[in-house]
């Protein structure tokens, strides 16, 4: 595998998380009548942001570890060390 899937996945969830929680902060309270008065955009946005950050961190850590193991082979992130 050439790219660790956790990097793009983490990035996408961070972007979604920022979009949703940011919108949740500025949006009108009346919007949340249908979601039982819960500001679901803000809260779920934060959950997605946290998940995205975690994925990105894990992906980057294994990327860095592999680069350290094989000097000069940083581009070959064959992530056999992924947690299973």
């Amino acid at each position, binding site marked *: *595998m*050439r*790219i660790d*899937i956790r990097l*793009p*996945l983490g990035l*996408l*969830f961070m*972007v*979604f998380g920022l*979009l*949703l929680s940011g*919108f*949740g902060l500025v*949006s009108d309270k009346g*919007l*949340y009548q*249908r*979601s*039982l008065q*819960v500001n*679901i*955009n803000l809260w*779920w946005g934060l959950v*997605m942001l946290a*998940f995205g950050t975690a994925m990105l961190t894990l992906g980057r850590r294994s990327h860095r570890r592999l680069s350290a193991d094989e000097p000069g082979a940083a581009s070959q992130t*064959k*992530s*056999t060390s*992924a*947690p*299973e």
Partner: protein
Amino acid sequence: MLTAIDWTIMIVYFAFVLGIGVALKRSTKTSSDFFLAGRSIPAWVCGLAFISANLGAQEVIGMGASGAKYGIATSHFYWIGAIPAMVFVGVFMMPFYYGSRARSVPEYLRLRFDEKTRGFNAISFATMTVFSSGISMYAMAKLIQTLHVFDAPFEKLGLPLSWVFHAGILVAAAVVLAYIFLGGLSSAIYNEVVQFFLIVAGFLPLVWLGLRNVGGWSGLKATLDASYTHSWIGMGSAHTNRLGVEWFGLAMGLGFVLSFGYWCTDFLVVQRAMAADSMSAARRTPLIAAFPKMLFPVLVILPGLIAIALPTQSTSTVAAVSNTAVAAPAGTGLIPAKLDADTGRPVRDSQGRVQLDYDLAIPNMLLHYFPTGILGLGLTALLASFMSGMAGNVTAFNTVWTYDIYQSYINPKATDQHYLWMGRMATVFGIALSIAAAYMASRFNNIMDMLQLVFAFVNAPLFATFLLGMFWKRTTGHGAFTGLLAGTTSAALHHALTLPAGAAPGVKGGWLATLHLYPSEMAQNFWTAIFAWSACFIVTILVSLATRPHEESRLAGLVYSLTERPKSHDLSWYQRPEILAVVALAIALVLNVIFM
């Protein structure tokens, strides 16, 4: 009702999906990269792709619909259906699929049996994938049109609203085409992993809000009849449960024949495991997949139950009746009455009761609970599930077409670069054929029903062939082929001689005579499968005994008794297939008991 934030989320997602395809194009250099992802994917990634490829329109919309119709008994499709079958394919069958170095399931059949068995399987499978991807495309476009959420931009441009349907089909097809054309199976698998997380992210808050609203599981139990909230009560007889099937038909037909037939022999899912980076990763793929899979009833069945438990909506914010002057009778909960497509009048059954449009259970839940913002995420999740199902079909099709049909019968001696090119071309015409099938489904619903019936006949006996092929070395090619034909024929015969209660003879069965009446269509389906499997099993054994056995030297790596067991004692405990299998089965058992 969608605002800028919803559109932004959808556009970001589509851009991201295409970005993955573009990023993977550089590393797709050989046909093995394109069709097998270079056999380099770690087990957990394959595992998530394994369930995601199956999470198409039928799964998400259909399971929500069944949840609303049958209640928690729908979980049988998971807890006695999918999970044991996934455990079986991982522990017992993957050593032969992966170990034989076959590049597809039909190719395994050629190595184990002969050319005609492979040809039969390859051609029926390739046709089937094209049609199923067309049918799910049709279902998606139809749903998008019914929901009316994407109408605004079309109205603004002055386009007729029927274009929403065409745009739905074309956009989904173009996106899937682009990312598979560029990156092949790796691209499909990467996207499936993202789609998996996106589906969870879109549906989990929905279930949370819904449960909060109805007072949790205990609230659901208090509102709904016990037949909705217990999966095993009344299974002693077909007339005392919502499914209309008795326990034996359920366990044998669904739990054994149909589920094992799908999860253990369908190349669409098996292909994901064949892309794994090692034998132990390939075996772990379905086992890792089993864990999230057994929790999926929460995401897809519960919303259906919640939708039926809610008070019936009077001023509806949700999709119900469209473009019709007839006052529609109320549905139940969030589920509207089903309307006849031609007359716009509600459909009634033989007793005059109004039929419900269960397929709208999950979409209406999204529209009911989600404000703008997260609604964009929910719709993106829905679109992602449609695309992952379609991509699964397309990648399986291009591989079987290129390796098992084109390379075997049309052009066997071309270069690897030529097959890579052919794979990309197969992606293009596979998708073009799917689009044609989608339009055919919108015009000639009956033809599609009939085709699906024929596929069901062809598929039902398959697992008997694989079981005998892998575990009985005496099975011969002639035996396998005759068995398959016998199984398919007896499926058709059984269908021709039986009828579900309340149906007219025709595409529902009984087109020769009605010897037996089943209490439900599901019971008839399960028993058709049981008959097909048994006929195939018996005929394969008889013909094999009467024909010359294969030489044992040819069967090494293909049959259980002539293959070295894959070693797993040097793996950590949580990587050993046997341990994962036992844990998965134990949890599935506990879930059955909890919701009994």
